[in-house]
């Protein structure tokens, strides 16, 4: 599974660093580092909906507050 978080300017000011840090932590806590590849990208062209996250080809809009829930629902549950 490949999880791509947008780290472009617009998402950055909406908290993409916190999203990345939360996901990094949870992936490691759940021993999923082998199965989940976390990557960055500089724009997904959907700046209004940031923080933009792709899980494989599916798009999600995530906030720093919803990152943990997003992990449970869309990463841990599907991996």
């Amino acid at each position, binding site marked *: 599974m490949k999880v791509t978080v947008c780290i472009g300017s617009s998402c950055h000011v909406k908290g993409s*660093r916190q999203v990345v840090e939360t996901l990094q932590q949870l992936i490691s806590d759940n021993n999923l580092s082998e199965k989940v590849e976390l990557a960055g990208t500089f724009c997904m062209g959907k700046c209004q909906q940031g923080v933009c996250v792709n899980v494989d080809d599916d798009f999600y809009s995530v906030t720093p507050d919803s990152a943990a829930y997003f992990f449970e629902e869309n990463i841990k549950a599907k991996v």
Partner: protein
Amino acid sequence: MGVRKFDTKVQHLKYKVLREVARHAWNDTLLDNLLSIPETIAPGKTPTMRCCVYKERAILSERVKMVMGGDKDNPNVIQVIDIACDECPSAGYEVTDSCRGCLAHRCEDVCKRGAITFDQNHVAHIDKSKCVECGQCAKVCPFTAIINRKRPCQNACKVKAISINEDNAAAIDNSKCIQCGACVYQCPFGAITDKSYILDVIDMIKKSENNQKYKVYAIVAPSISSQFVYAKLGQVIKGLKELGFFTVIEAALGADMVAQAESQELAEKGFLTSSCCPAFVQYIKSAFPDLLPLVSHNLSPMAALAQYIKKTDKDAKVVFIGPCTAKKAEAQLESVKPHVDAVMTFEELQALYDSKDVDITTLGEDVLDNASYFGRIFARLGGLSDAVAQGLKEQNIEFDLKAIACDGIEECRMALLKKSKNVLDANFIEGMACVGGCIGGAGCLTHGEKNKAEVDKYGREAFEKTISDAVAILK
């Protein structure tokens, strides 16, 4: 165009040529109109710049060639337009008619070479075969009657790469030139200029088919905060996307990466010079090759960030936009070529906007926020040293930093000279070839007192406050 966008009329002329060529390039009409561009810019029969319109147009043709990449056989990105060189007086020290034929003869007394003689009217003359251009006579003359006739280009070139050729035009010694562009900015006739690669940029954008085939990324140097001051920075960024760039990223994020890595490297090695300024690095290569091992092995912020972008998107095309002519040469280095596809200056960006009639003052504001305060202040002298100090602190590295920030290539030379003799009281050299740092770059639209304050203000506005937070996102 009510707002003054450039420091000089030479820049404005250069801009007009860039804009015309770019306009045709966007419309695929460049080949058909190549020969008519000079007349478009210098119409009519009355000359406004030179002796006649024909000479003006001949020079403009040469300028068009420079916009199209210049002389391919000359590897230097800085090139002299021979016919534009006005062959300025270059006689060195001369006595002018202000000499009153006084009794004191201080000039004669101070001259250690006995080069001063007097005619029957007691007026001083300088014997060129004896004069060593020390300038003492000019200093002591109470009538300031002795002046130094030096060409502005030679005066600007502190690395002494400019000489005068057999045709009395300026000639650049490529083995000494560091591409800093000081001569480009200082030549009052615009006879020395930097080659442009904007046609490559336009081609890249067009062939991307709205960033569908591949994406074109713009990296902007932090000194952009002191430029385009007639608009808001957010509008400058929006304008880049209007031109067709996929997205815009701060070179300052690359600077954060460099600051972190460079502070580690410094602590390991005990002594380092910076590697961010390509003109400074080129100067070490040409004038102090023995010191090359002491240059930081980090890529420059531009190259480091471009490399990272291509890691996230292997088909990406990356264009760096900054104040610097030397970056154009850096992008041609084997170590940088794979990462950076083209380099352009702020001057060229202004022309690009206007070639597409993008009036940035009418646009909405976009966001530019990737880096920390420390990455952003790389744009001005001392910022790099501050960032390395911060990098050491944040990573809890025990190292007694003693930095020297060199303001312009002459100060760089002094520090390097001392280092080569082992008498430099510092363990880190921040080398900035331009006075003031990057904000003094030849590719800036304007150079002014306020620019440093603008950069600092922009630094304080950064969303991330520390280097580690800014780079955390990249891991």
